[in-house]
């Protein structure tokens, strides 16, 4: 393989190919061998994602394959690439999803094929598989393997203001300490339980 200069190695085109799984594995390895990554990777990435999703809102952060935090008006919301909006990113987006909980051994075994048919596991009541789907496109967005009754996990709650201001050197226009307050329990506290 010809020697790759660092500028070419980390080109926008290479990052895009890597995202699509089409970058030559040798080049992926060269990227991996960079102990310290180039400074502008994030900007290239967001630029590619903006193009890929076609969102008119600014992408603030990608959370997963389908989910993004975007700036919409004076809000910061979680949005699926199908267009479905989950609302305020300070509330665990799972609260806006569709959930299927696999609770019986049989249902769980449908999803986990590595157990011998004859083995009486997994044990019902000890564990359940929760699958979270997008109400818009029914994509499977997250899976939890937890005991029944386990509070739903808020996997990632980024401190966007600090990230953009202190780490990326480009503060967001609507900075406010309120943006880094988890509102999940507050949201649940409004639900009617009768």
């Amino acid at each position, binding site marked *: 393989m010809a020697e790759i200069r660092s500028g070419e190695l980390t080109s926008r085109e290479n990052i895009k190919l890597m995202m699509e799984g089409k970058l030559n594995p040798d080049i992926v390895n060269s990227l991996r061998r960079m102990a310290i990554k180039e400074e502008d*990777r994030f900007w290239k990435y967001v630029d590619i994602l903006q193009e890929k999703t076609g969102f008119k809102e600014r992408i603030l952060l990608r959370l997963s394959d389908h989910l993004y935090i975007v700036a919409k008006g004076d809000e910061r919301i979680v949005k699926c690439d199908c267009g479905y909006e989950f609302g305020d990113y300070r509330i665990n987006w799972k609260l806006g999803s569709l959930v*299927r909980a696999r609770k019986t051994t049989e249902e769980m075994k449908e999803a*986990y094929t590595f157990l011998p048919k004859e083995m009486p596991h997994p*044990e019902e009541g*000890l564990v359940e598989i929760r699958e979270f*789907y997008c109400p818009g496109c029914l994509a499977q967005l997250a899976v939890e393997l937890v005991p029944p009754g386990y509070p*739903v*996990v808020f996997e990632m709650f980024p401190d966007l203001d600090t990230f953009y201001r202190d780490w990326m050197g480009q503060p967001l226009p609507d900075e406010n300490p309120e943006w880094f307050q988890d509102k999940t329990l507050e949201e649940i506290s409004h639900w009617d*339980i009768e």
Partner: protein
Amino acid sequence: MGIGEGGKTIAEMLEERDRLIAETGYFYGLKELELHDEDPAKMTRFNWRLTNACITAKESAKLLSATPTVRTFGECLFMLLLPQGDCITASHGLAGHVASARDQIAYMVRLGYEDNPKIREGDIFACNSPRYGGGHSADNYTYVPIFHEGELVAWAAGINHIAEVGSALYSASVPIVSPTTYTDGWAYPPMKIGDGFQIAKWWNLLWKEKTRMGNFNILDSNMRVAGSIMIHETVKNVIEEFGIDYFRKGIREILERERRRVETIVRRQMIPGIYKHAYWRLSENKGQVGPSFPFADKDFPIHTPIELHLTGDGRFSIDLSGTSREDYHSWNAPSDGTRRLALAWWWLPQFVHSICINTAFDYLIDYTIPEGSHLNPTNEQLSTSIGLGGMATLMTPLWNICKRCFFSRGVLEEDWSATGCGGLLEPEGVLEVGVPWSFGMFGAAGSWSTDAGSFRDGLSAATCGFNPQSDMGEVEEWDLYEPPLVCLARKLPPNLFAHGKFRGGLGISWVFLVVNAGQRLSISFGSGGGPRIIGPAVGMSGGYPGGYTDWHVIFSNTNALELIEKGMGYPTTLPEIMQWINEGKLKVGKIQYVSGGMPSIPLKDGDLYVLSSHGEAGWGDPVERDLSLIEKDLNEGWMTPGVGKDIYGAVAQSVDGKWQVDKNSTNKEREKIKQTRREKAKPFKEWWLEERELVVNKEFKEEVSYIYQDVLGNAKAGAQFRGFWRVGEDYQL
């Protein structure tokens, strides 16, 4: 008059180090890296001399060991430490252990070892008790102080995982069932085991009396001492060449340079914020401890909820509020090991991309570990024999948290993570001629697969979370050390992974046949977890989390030996065995399924034993998997067409012996899967209301109640739980 620099005591030097870091934020207050700036080439040469001293020590000394665990798998490490115990640089190998030495040295200092038994040139110290910073007593540490003109200037250290620790209930290096500290086997605090660079004679006698494999353990001990003395010699030469002032300043500068490096990596790849992950395992002891330990006769859940707060100044604050209590199982992990060793497994592969493996990252972390939890036990009667298993509950969550950040930053190429089961097969017995034997087979520990990344499948049987230099070893070599267990096959059977748009690395399985069992033969298996709870806990991007694929099937009273004698061959995977049984070819008496860690189970001639391990996590929604990848899986035998259809919606046909996936039918099938999702799923709030009933009515199995009792007993975790389910302040279990 102390033995440290300029007559300071080591205790004073410890205090000085911590004070300077606290005051300045720089390691040892080094705002400038003068030696690096003055002559970078000289500094590089200096650094490499020290790193090479460790690598050379390992590569030479390991040949003294009698076990393939050390020689092939590389389960050992040699290090150069500051007088205070910080690791400056290390060999390749069992890298996580760089972090433990700091605590063991600190203990020696705090216990007043400078005065009694005194630390002098030529002394040899050793420790394996997990209460002083290690992970389990299999990991034995050896320290040789390095003096210059009467002052302690560094330590040389060696560590390896030994073959057997002399536990009470059965032979093992990681006794998976041990109800109290008194059944753990031989664990010793930091001890002076020799002087004048000579090991004391009584030391070897202790190995012979206290463990089942004394001779192997003595050779390993010799290896650690020999390697440490090699480092000692090289460092003396380096000091002569570079001068003592350069040496003292240079080794501190290396650590500050490395601290800055990891800080930069964190800022390039992570995102400040709060990350949560759940992880849990079962210590399956019920029915395994005999009538003498009724208090330990149950299955203990080991739950570790993790909240990581990465702040704007690049510091990691790890909060384990709600972690399960300490108890009468073998997985209690003293807090020093948790804070250093366990976390080093996390940060080493994620951040320390350096010529010298070091402990600079350690200074970026703060901890909250509840007292009395399994990761910070206070009851000294409890077992710690596989504390490392408890500590390991931190790895997968923290790796996944990093991976999530790397993905969000666009650093997709950094996607190494694993679910981390895969333990040690530990057979023992007495041969026909009366010779007792026992052994730990590291093949499973050395063949972890990895989780999928965001653009590629996981690797298969390729790695080990603890040991970046891992190697699963040759079947023939392992066979040599466990004579009655003949490995018939080591294979990657189909469907043994967790699903996703990108699938986890393939699981691996072994089939053993018992030949000439001798007077007695039994096997046990030290594992990270079993399929009763499938696995832990939070998947990536809609992919299924990796599972605890450590499971065992034992077929007793078979006619396998007869079949081989008749030239009829033998089955090589569990599905093949089941097929042979169904076809009436293979006759079996009893079939026993065991989940996860396996207690001592006796075997006889002709028994078949199947061991499975390592099906790793997927990434993304399975119905988005590329059709060509599915075709490849089908044609290479990693996936069966049924699973391809049920999970991935792939409609495949065999054309001239090759599987082809039809695009149109697959699209229709995938629509059907989405339809099923719509039918089976509920809007979150509706689901929450139903689940809440279960919580309100406390309809939990005993093991689940056990987990929530500790969650509710913790102020922070309890408030989260009660707030999430809206069950009121007085809710208890």
